[in-house]
């Protein structure tokens, strides 16, 4: 049943369901990287990197632009789907609290896959062969992000080659995939070590390491 639904969604380009699949794959990768329970900021940062670094894996970004905030990346539409998955029982939510975010209050939380209900769906995603490269990419991204201290995610994302572009002000759109936009992050990831044939996984790890190096350098 789950397989049929997924195939249907894929064919009909059902964006809502495809976003939910992406969330499950990101959380699945995060769980295997030992990142659970995943803080909201980390999950949205993973979603952002899965868009901006998609070309490194020869994939299309799911969302090619994002509204720049003072803090780390946040996708309101993705959050809606996350809440929906919580409501459906596929994801457990914990540590719910209110945080002040850009002058407004929003709910913050941490997220964990609810194995009993999410495992059959994740297995179905695998069994129908749905974007196997995306699954590997999400898992690898989570492995790379696991090296970062969770409380530094916001600082680290401010150093991102695209999101941290100083020529784009807060409250403006960061466009990296639509029209004539240039994807600085993907270009940077592709620029590592031109003398050796790095794998896409290595490029993602090197990119996140460099993010951290820059954050440390600027903090120091």
């Amino acid at each position: 049943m789950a397989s049929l639904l997924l195939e249907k969604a894929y064919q009909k380009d059902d964006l809502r369901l495809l976003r939910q699949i992406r969330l499950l794959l990101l959380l699945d990768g995060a769980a295997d990287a030992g990142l659970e329970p995943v803080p909201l900021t980390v999950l949205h940062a993973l979603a952002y990197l899965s868009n901006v670094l998609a070309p490194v894996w020869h994939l299309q970004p799911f969302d090619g632009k994002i509204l720049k905030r003072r803090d780390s990346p946040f996708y309101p539409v993705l959050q809606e789907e996350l809440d929906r998955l919580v409501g459906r029982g596929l994801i457990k939510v914990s540590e719910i609290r209110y945080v002040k975010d850009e002058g407004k209050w929003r709910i913050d939380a941490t997220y964990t896959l609810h194995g009993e209900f999410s495992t059959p769906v994740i297995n179905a995603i695998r069994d129908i062969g749905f974007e196997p490269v995306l699954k590997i990419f999400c898992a690898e991204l989570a492995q790379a992000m696991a090296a970062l201290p969770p409380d530094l995610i916001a600082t680290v994302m401010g150093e991102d080659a695209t999101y941290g572009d100083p020529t784009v002000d807060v409250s403006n759109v960061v466009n990296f995939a639509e029209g004539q936009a240039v994807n600085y992050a993907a270009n940077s990831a592709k620029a590592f070590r031109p003398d050796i044939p790095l794998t896409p996984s290595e490029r993602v790890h090197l990119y996140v390491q460099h993010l951290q190096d820059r954050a440390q350098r600027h903090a120091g």
Partner: protein
Amino acid sequence: MPDNSERMGPWEADRQEIVHKRANGTGLYSEIDEQLEFRKAVARLATDEIASVVKPTDIAYFVLADKLLFEKVRPSADRVPMLQNSSRRSRSIPGNLWFVPKSLAQGYAIDTKSLIAEEVFREIETLDAGERPTIIVDFHPKPRLYIYPGGISQPDISECLDLLNKSVAIQDIEMALEGSYRLLRSPDQMKALPLWKNSEKWYPVEKAEDAIQNQVIHALAGRFAHIADVRSEQPSTIGRTDVELVQERGLPNGSVIRHALIELKVLRSYGSTGKPVSDRIMRRHISQGVRQAAHYGNANNSKIRMLCCYDMRKKDVGDATCFEKFYGPCKDRNVHLKRYFLYNSSAALRQAFDNIAVSEGASPLPE
């Protein structure tokens, strides 16, 4: 090669740093085998510990965890972020039982300083992790990795890696390749990744080189996990199956030692569709392999250049006959030749063993 001229926005100032960034190999084997990635990460961490000022003496235990295991250990273990960063991690590596992801980006630790190995094993089994891949790093007196691919509950398939043995000579490479040959030589041992399309007719699969390359990478990456990375060209460039052993670890930044370049060729009597392949074409194939090994070896300044021929032909003609016309040219080009004959059935392999026994003096069996 990636386009290096693309704009990098605020990272443009870092271009030189990015271009020369040390590739520590994290993620190199992710798409091949998570156990290789895990082994490499543990070996790297262990060699860093050995090189540190404070010489470690306690044992470190690493269990490759998945989401279920992380869920179990979370309540009783301490989370240690930035595990690979010796100056920033909050806990020492030795004297702990670690539950880690394959990249060792972080870990959950349980103090084992007051426990003997038997007690630690019991702790692992209590968490139902006895069958999870485990690596034990014994730092003292001779640093060694004890690798349990099937977990500590299956000690019969464990391996030991001497971390002080940094030799990458032809003999070491051959020894590693011999291990993979044992898997490749009979179709029964290669069921997961078959080399034969129709073994009874000696028809190899279309991409036999890819399956062999995969095994060769496994063998070399496992054997040299503490020394070098095994790199190969990206899958899109079909037809070039070169494998390289490259070392950056333990060297000054910017320095690279290219220990070996290994070119792989499959010798066939037939194509995958059953079309016969002549000896002349196979000789050309070997010549091409020698040229590639010499050319890439020269271009990359590889210390060892090898051509390994995996012989899937009907008859095992022996090295001397197969390479008769190649020994001289290979010596001139500094290319080492090696041939591995692949049997089309386990019966043929047994027959070959018996032929050796007879040649060594055993009385022949009646027909």
